[in-house]
């Protein structure tokens, strides 16, 4: 299938008074139609700049971006504006018009493309129904909670039937429960309308929750990309490992002892793997990190275990886990 977004060797340099900052250092990435593509990185990694290059809110210094094979850098101002109506965007701070009510906020993008007022209002009400805020149509943004504001922003983003939805840290200002509901809404939108979604975030949990693919940006460079499962199960680069493990700083005290990381992806969540292993091997383990969840009876997630000092028991444990088809790797090299 043709990629809907092609990022080709994009660099972006910001020139200050007496210094230059290379925000992006040659990034190439293809995003397929229908993907929910996560772009993750630490703050300052350049991911927000990258997402703004996808609708040319930031023009790349070199390189280009193709949307459905159309080169954005070759477009006139007018063509670019037309293309932007097909690439919607939502933001960390929602960016709603504070002096307009919810309904008029959703109508705003339709005003820009010249939809008749009555038609725009009708469509806006339908969209508010989808995001579950129909009864708030006459409210003003200041009267809404963060999650509600983001729902309005999503309704607004869908107004002109975009092909792509860019989300710039869209859940970073929200609490975990609200984040989850917003992510579910995005998932539903992706499924129901086939809109390709690009999600910029610094939280691995967001990527795990809904993304099909992920790219890891580190210091302006693409560190790693692939399906979420690939990257999550076997991160290759230091940047990827750092994000995937999100290690508790206290873990550094365990230096010098053997630690392993286990990834759950196909085991039954009804099987108490770790407890059975401890009973079988008759030695204790120290759970340094555990982040697992039950998705449809299958355990997903990861654990980091500190193994007993007794080498035989440790080897037996690794063997036991590998027998149960868990991905096991030693992680003492990365800690810190």
């Amino acid at each position: 299938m043709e990629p809907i977004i092609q990022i080709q060797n994009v660099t972006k340099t910001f020139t200050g008074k007496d210094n230059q900052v290379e925000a992006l250092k040659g990034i190439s990435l293809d995003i397929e139609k229908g993907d929910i593509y996560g772009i993750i990185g630490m703050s300052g990694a350049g991911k927000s700049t990258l997402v703004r290059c996808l609708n040319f809110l930031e023009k790349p210094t070199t390189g280009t971006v193709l949307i459905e094979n159309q080169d954005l850098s070759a477009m006139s101002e007018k063509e670019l504006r037309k293309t932007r109506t097909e690439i919607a965007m939502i933001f960390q701070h929602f960016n709603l018009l504070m002096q307009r009510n919810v309904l008029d906020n959703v109508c705003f993008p339709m005003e820009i493309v010249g939809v008749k007022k009555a038609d725009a209002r009708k469509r806006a009400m339908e969209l508010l129904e989808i995001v579950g805020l129909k009864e708030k149509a006459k409210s003003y943004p200041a009267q809404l909670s963060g999650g509600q504001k983001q729902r309005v922003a999503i309704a607004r983003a869908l107004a002109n039937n975009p092909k792509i939805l860019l989300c710039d840290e869209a859940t970073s200002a929200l609490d975990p429960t609200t984040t989850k509901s917003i992510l579910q809404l995005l998932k539903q939108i992706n499924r129901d309308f086939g809109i390709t979604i690009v999600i910029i975030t610094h939280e691995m949990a967001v990527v795990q929750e809904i993304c099909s693919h992920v790219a890891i940006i580190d210091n302006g460079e693409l560190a790693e990309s692939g399906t979420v499962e690939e990257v999550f199960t076997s991160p290759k680069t230091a940047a990827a490992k750092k994000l995937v493990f999100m290690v508790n700083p206290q873990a550094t005290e365990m230096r010098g002892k053997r630690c392993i990381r286990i990834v759950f992806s196909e085991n039954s969540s009804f099987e108490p793997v770790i407890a059975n292993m401890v009973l079988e091997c008759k030695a204790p383990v120290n759970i340094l990190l555990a982040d697992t969840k039950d998705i449809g009876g299958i355990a997903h997630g990861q654990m980091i275990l500190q193994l007993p000092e007794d080498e035989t028991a440790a080897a037996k444990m690794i063997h036991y886990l590998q027998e149960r088809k868990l991905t096991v790797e030693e992680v003492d090299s990365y800690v810190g």
Partner: protein
Amino acid sequence: MWDSTVVKMIAEGTLVTLYMTLVSTLAAYVLGLPMGIILVVTAKDGLRPNKLIYKTLDFIVNIVRSVPFLILLILVIPLTRAIVGKAYGPTATIVPLVLAAAPFIARMVESSLLEVDKGVIEAAQSMGAGLWTIIWKVLLGEARTSLIVGATIVLGTVLGYSSMAGIVGGGGLGDIAIQYGYYRYQADIMWVTVILLVVLVQIMQVFGTRLSKKLDKRTR
């Protein structure tokens, strides 16, 4: 001495003052509003950065703003004569009032528009909004309460300036205060005009504040 002639004179003076203030403010906005918008749009991080236009306009605004009104009033007499045909009277006073108020308005508008959240502007751009849509619907729309508060301040200032024009026969309440209070030592007439000026400013202030509060949807 508080006969019908004096009362009539003061009533007329009040109307003349209102005429000068309102017409000048309106005309000054015709000049100052676009100037303020251009300042914001052409600024370094504006929507269409343009150093030459920005610097030129910024310089002109600063120059005119730093000339005291009374001096400006006298400086522009040749221009006033060319436009109105004479250099005294209410209509003639409008010329220097507009010239003084326009740069002041430009600065007020500039600061109001700069308060608009950059993120909202970015959002509009991401939707494919053009420059005019952003200026009209985002900048002016979102800054409307601040613009109204600004206009209230401008009205008060222009009212004050119009009184100053009484020195050179500008007409209105200021003129009466100077003629009777200063030249003829009739303090009572001067006090009445001063009180009327204060009342006018108060009315404008209350009206402006109410309107801006009513239109502000950011609270609650």
